[in-house]
């Protein structure tokens, strides 16, 4: 809007400027700048007076000061110097511009170039000066139109009647004129109007206080150059005093003279024929004549030569007719100057009506006359101004009807004045504007307010153009509107521009309403002016509700204060605002908006409006929130992750790291940055580390290597160092993010694994166990090296089922096929034994244990271990063989418990072997294989195997295949042989041996080996029983003797742990033992042997520590000799196996 105003001001044909209170020009329109050649925007010190002439300066400044002090608009008439030095006259109209706080800060000057008319005229107030003049005349003056309407009254008139101009407008003669004088007055006026002559009538007028006073009313027609009467001027002279004087004259002539002479007017009288017989002293004094010189017709010599004839003519006429004299003429004063006077004379008649005397006065009307002339000139000039200024000017009467139109007006519209008055009907005003114009005119007429409107008027060429019509009322002093002056200015171009602007604004609004943003405009003070539809739709309010956005909860309570602060700060500073806030939508949900506001300024840089744009950034905001959360989380991760993070600049300089890194080194970041020189990198890795890292920095490729870093406590740990470059939009690397993962434990684990793998291979070798993998779907097979060895395949060859089947014993092929089919069908954990046949014909026993695994990708794999158990099987076979041998023994000896005893001795290590082998297989089949335990169990297996073998060896020794032969045996000799065999063992065990062997002992019948075995058993048992006691107490006594029953006795006495007397029998039960590693069969077998020799074996506790075990055998008799047949049949074997 400011822009438009500036355009309008620039397009005015006036100089327009504003001055601040300090007198400096603040603003000037284009016309001003063009005229003066100056520019206040560049020269800030310009004062409006600078255009004045020196001659005008003081008066103009004084005048401005007066206007300014009055605080009312005012005019002045000055010359302004043009840019080329020429001076032109201007009518300057000053108007105060109200500031914000109602103090008059500035004045606006509007200068109209009137140089062409030479006289300064404010076209709106052409009669102002006239008014001043007539107001100062000490008589009552009234001006009426030719038709008799009162147009003006001077102040004395108004004062006399005590009424305002408005009241007197409606003045009828009957209201003020004495009823007795009314007819005469009206008659005189009508006559004068009719013939255009002046009139003079005496009548009584009612004063404001009701008193009537006599007045001489003189009516003068005012004509223009062409002689037409324009107005009537009425001079109303109070003659009450004179009337009274006249009344007194008849009685008191002398008084009269005195009175007349005392009157402020010149007075005279003549005889009926006109001969002057009296002139007042004042007259004589004015004229500088003596009465004698002026008597008769002598006065005529001071009348202006130009006036003498008209005066004489009027005077003669009056003398002839008896009409009152009323004529104006100039009279020369004593100094030779002419002044205008009004000559008035009335006849004095006698009772018969005959004129007896004329009484006359001369009223100095020079000032008035001059004023009149001036007025007429002014009128004429004003008229000509109106006609010649380039504006369409109309004068309207109080009712708003055209009463005068200047020539430009009529010419432009091609109308006569009469036609112009008919504007309501003749199409002068555009039909679309007509009703509006009519209502404005009517309203303006009713209220008396100045009006300004724009309408289209039809020019002479028939086209309508836009005009701005400004009407100002002219009021008299009582405030009554006398006239309207209106100026119509062609604003078509501006209007068109405005139309276009409006159109573009409409378009803009359309755009504003359709764009998906929320737009609000605010006044300079922040008051909400408008909001687009989207805004109202979003908040679900109408505009009246919305304008209270600061209080009605649209803005989120948490954001409101900040939003208001931003907004008000911008209002104060004029800077755009930009902030984010949550706004509540119609659905009650708050969404984030970015609020931006820009001020729109006029040409004077004043902010006229704020445009606010609100952009929905809720999604962005959420994304930001989630980003911030992510960042927080990331930061948490970075600082809490079990890794160290380092950030490098593009030049490899360490730029940052997480807490873990600092904690690891326990040194400041700046020091860690010197990792290449400060020793925290392991010396052996340093060069590799630098090469790897700097190589990546140079190439931009990610790095990944392993190196050792020294921890704060001096311990080097292995790290995997991985780094990735971070690139900006242009692809330039600006950061490297490095992750340091502590792999020290993994490194050690790797070493451990390598060791484990070695162990595994060793373990497989030792335990004769191989490992295989069978991908069931594809029949891909993998054999460990040991397994290849077991199968006697070449190392590294591709194992196929064909090759395997070639090795499998043909009797076992059906079973293998069955087991494999089960695995294919999905059965788990196969476990079986098969036999292999080597190429050189040897049989190998292998035990297979497998586990079927399903991989994540659906593949099925059978993992397993195969152990060669040939040795075990052979041991078992040996055991089986032993059993059959034992069967022979039992057959011979009838020792039922022998079998159990032997079974116990053998099954014990076998249980260990099988349990250990099972564990071993499980350990090897586990993922990862548990090598250590597997190794241990394998070792135990071997040990238990050996133990079993020992048992067999001993049994073999006991029960050799040879036939048992009974013979005559010297028991003492047999004992000596046994002692000789076991002496070193006893010595080693710290056993002190004493023998008490009888000489000449009769021989006994028996098997030497068996009996010696029993003796050995007893000795060993005794030694073992003493192994737990102190070495000095280990005494063993062996005695042979012939007892009282003539039986040969052998006793073995020890000092060992002994047994309870109750246990004396139990010690001979087959698996009774007091020894941890004992066979538990020694005494039992021994008793069996002795009993098979018809002897007896028993034990009893000693008086002191220990036990004495003894047996007795009968003496050898020649005829008792016999041989035991060796039973060697499968049946007896099977029987034995079933019993064990």
């Amino acid at each position, binding site marked *: 809007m400011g822009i438009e105003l500036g355009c309008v001001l620039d397009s005015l044909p006036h100089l327009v400027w504003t001055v601040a209170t300090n007198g400096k020009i603040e603003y000037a329109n284009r016309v001003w700048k063009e005229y003066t050649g100056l520019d206040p925007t560049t020269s800030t010190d310009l004062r409006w007076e600078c255009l004045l002439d020196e001659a005008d300066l003081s008066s103009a400044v004084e005048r401005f000061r007066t206007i300014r002090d009055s605080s009312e608009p005012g005019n002045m008439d000055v010359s302004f110097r043009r840019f080329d030095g020429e001076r032109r006259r201007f009518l300057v109209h000053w108007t105060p511009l109200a500031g914000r706080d109602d103090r008059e800060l500035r004045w606006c000057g509007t200068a109209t170039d009137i140089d062409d008319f030479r006289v300064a005229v404010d076209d709106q107030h052409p009669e102002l000066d006239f008014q001043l003049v007539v107001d100062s005349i000490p008589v009552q003056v009234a001006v009426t139109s030719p038709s008799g309407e009162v147009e003006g009254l001077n102040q004395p008139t108004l004062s006399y009647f005590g009424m305002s101009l408005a009241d007197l407008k409606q003045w009828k003669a009957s209201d003020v004129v004495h009823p007795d004088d009314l007819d005469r007055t009206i008659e005189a006026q009508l006559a004068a109007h009719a013939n255009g002559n002046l009139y003079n009538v005496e009548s009584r007028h009612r004063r404001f206080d009701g008193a009537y006073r006599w007045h001489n009313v003189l009516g003068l027609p005012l004509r223009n150059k062409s002689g037409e009467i324009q107005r009537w001027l009425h001079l109303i002279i109070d003659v009450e005093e004179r009337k009274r004087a006249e009344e007194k004259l008849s009685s008191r002539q002398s008084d009269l003279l005195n009175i007349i002479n005392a009157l402020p007017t010149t007075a005279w009288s003549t005889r009926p024929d006109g001969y002057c017989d009296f002139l007042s002293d004042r007259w004589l004094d004015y004229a500088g004549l003596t009465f004698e010189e002026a008597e008769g017709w002598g006065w005529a010599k001071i009348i202006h030569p130009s006036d003498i004839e008209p005066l004489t003519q009027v005077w003669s006429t009056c003398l002839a007719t008896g009409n009152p004299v009323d004529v104006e003429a100039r009279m020369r004063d004593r100094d030779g100057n002419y002044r205008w006077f009004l000559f008035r004379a009335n006849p004095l008649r006698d009772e018969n009506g005959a004129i007896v005397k004329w009484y006359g006065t001369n009223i100095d009307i020079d000032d008035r006359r001059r004023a009149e002339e001036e007025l007429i000139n002014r009128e004429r000039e004003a008229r000509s101004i109106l006609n010649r200024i380039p504006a369409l000017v109309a004068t309207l009467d109080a009712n708003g009807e055209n009463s005068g139109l200047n020539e430009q007006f009529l010419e432009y519209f091609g109308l006569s004045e009469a036609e112009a008055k008919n504007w309501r009907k003749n199409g002068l005003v555009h039909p679309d504007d007509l009703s509006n114009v009519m209502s404005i005119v009517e309203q303006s007429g009713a209220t008396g307010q100045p009006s300004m409107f724009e309408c289209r008027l039809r020019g002479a060429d028939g086209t309508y153009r836009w005009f701005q019509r400004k009407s100002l009322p002219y009021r008299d002093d009582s405030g009554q509107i006398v006239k309207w002056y209106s100026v119509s200015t062609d604003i078509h171009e501006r209007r068109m521009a405005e139309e276009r602007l409006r159109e573009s604004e409409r378009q803009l609004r359309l755009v504003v309403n359709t764009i998906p943003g929320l737009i609000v405009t605010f006044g300079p003070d922040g008051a909400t002016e408008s909001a687009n539809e989207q805004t109202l739709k979003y908040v679900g309010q109408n505009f009246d509700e919305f304008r209270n956005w600061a209080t009605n909860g649209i803005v989120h309570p948490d954001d409101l204060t900040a939003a208001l602060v931003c907004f008000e700060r911008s209002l104060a500073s004029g800077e755009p605002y930009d902030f984010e806030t949550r706004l509540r939508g119609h659905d009650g949900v708050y969404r984030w908006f970015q609020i931006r506001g820009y001020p729109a300024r006029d040409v004077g840089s004043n902010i006229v409006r704020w445009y606010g744009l609100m952009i929905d950034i809720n999604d962005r905001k959420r994304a930001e929130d989630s980003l911030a959360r992510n960042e927080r989380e990331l930061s948490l991760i970075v600082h809490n992750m079990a890794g160290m993070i380092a950030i490098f600049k593009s030049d490899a300089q360490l730029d940052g790291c997480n807490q873990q890194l600092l904690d690891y080194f326990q040194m400041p970041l700046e020091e860690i940055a010197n990792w290449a020189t400060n020793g925290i990198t392991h010396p052996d890795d340093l060069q590799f580390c630098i090469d790897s890292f700097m190589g990546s920095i140079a190439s931009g490729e990610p790095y990944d290597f392993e190196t050792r870093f020294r921890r704060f406590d001096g311990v080097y740990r292995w790290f995997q160092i991985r780094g990735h470059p971070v690139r900006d939009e242009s692809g330039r690397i600006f950061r490297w993010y490095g992750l340091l993962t502590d792999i020290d434990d993994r490194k050690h684990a790797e070493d451990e694994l390598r060791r484990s793998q070695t162990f595994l291979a060793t373990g497989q070798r030792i335990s004769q166990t191989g490992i295989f993998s069978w991908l069931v779907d594809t029949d891909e097979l993998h054999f460990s090296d040991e397994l290849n060895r077991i199968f006697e395949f070449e190392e590294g060859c591709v194992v196929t089922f064909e090759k395997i089947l070639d090795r499998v014993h043909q009797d076992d092929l059906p079973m293998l096929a069955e087991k494999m089919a089960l695995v294919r069908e999905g059965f788990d954990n196969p476990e079986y034994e098969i036999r292999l046949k080597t190429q050189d014909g040897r049989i190998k026993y292998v035990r297979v244990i497998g586990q079927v695994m399903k991989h994540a990708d659906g593949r099925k794999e059978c993992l397993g271990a195969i152990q060669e158990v040939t040795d075990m099987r052979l041991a078992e076979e040996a055991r089986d063989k032993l059993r059959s041998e034992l069967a022979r023994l039992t057959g011979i000896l009838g020792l039922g418990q022998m079998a*159990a005893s032997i079974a*116990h001795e053998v099954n014990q*290590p076998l*249980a*260990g*072997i*099988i*349990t250990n082998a099972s*564990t071993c297989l499980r350990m090897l089949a586990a993922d990862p294989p548990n090598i250590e335990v597997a190794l241990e169990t394998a070792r*135990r297996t071997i040990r238990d195997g050996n133990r079993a073998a020992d048992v067999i060896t001993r049994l073999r020794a006991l029960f050799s295949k040879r036939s048992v032969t009974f013979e005559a045996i010297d028991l003492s000799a047999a004992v000596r042989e046994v002692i000789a065999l076991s002496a070193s063992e006893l010595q080693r065990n710290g056993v002190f041996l004493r023998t008490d062997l009888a000489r000449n002992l009769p021989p006994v019948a028996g098997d030497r080996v068996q009996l010696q075995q029993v003796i050995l058993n007893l000795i060993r048992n005794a030694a073992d029983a003493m192994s737990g006691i102190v070495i000095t107490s280990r005494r063993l006594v062996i005695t042979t003797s012939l007892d009282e029953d003539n039986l040969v006795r052998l006793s073995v006495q020890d000092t060992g742990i002994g047994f309870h007397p109750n246990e004396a029998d139990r010690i001979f039960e087959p698996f009774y033992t007091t020894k941890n590693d004992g066979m538990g069969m020694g005494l039992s077998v021994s008793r069996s042997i002795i009993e098979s020799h018809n002897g007896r074996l028993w034990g009893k506790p000693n008086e002191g520590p220990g036990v004495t075990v003894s047996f007795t055998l009968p003496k050898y008799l020649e005829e008792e000799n016999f041989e035991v047949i060796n039973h060697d049949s499968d049946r007896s074997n099977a029987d034995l196996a079933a019993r064990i």
Partner: protein
Amino acid sequence: MTKSHPLVSVVDDDESVRESLPDLLRALGYKAEAFTSGEEFLASDAPIRTQCLILDIAMPGMTGPELHSELVRRGQSLPTIFITAIRDEVARNRLMEKGAVDCLYKPFSEAALQQAIRTALET
């Protein structure tokens, strides 16, 4: 003590059993403890923690059946699997009647052992 890893106690005077059996039991997913005699077992806190007892029959001192009876007497009866190197069906039946879960003849297979333990833990 946990359900997933029940404690199986082994009482046997034979060292090779004490060495090998606990390892296998652990490989099968159990916890295992070994004792050289019934006296040692009773002297420990194992009777309270044990879910399954593997008990050798013939031992010097207290025999397996004696330990079993003693536990019953104390009210600390445990699911018991007897093991023995002597195949004696009469003795076996007697033990089964007395409430033994099973009686395995040495050497026994891993499968038989697993089956017996499963049965023991189910009771």
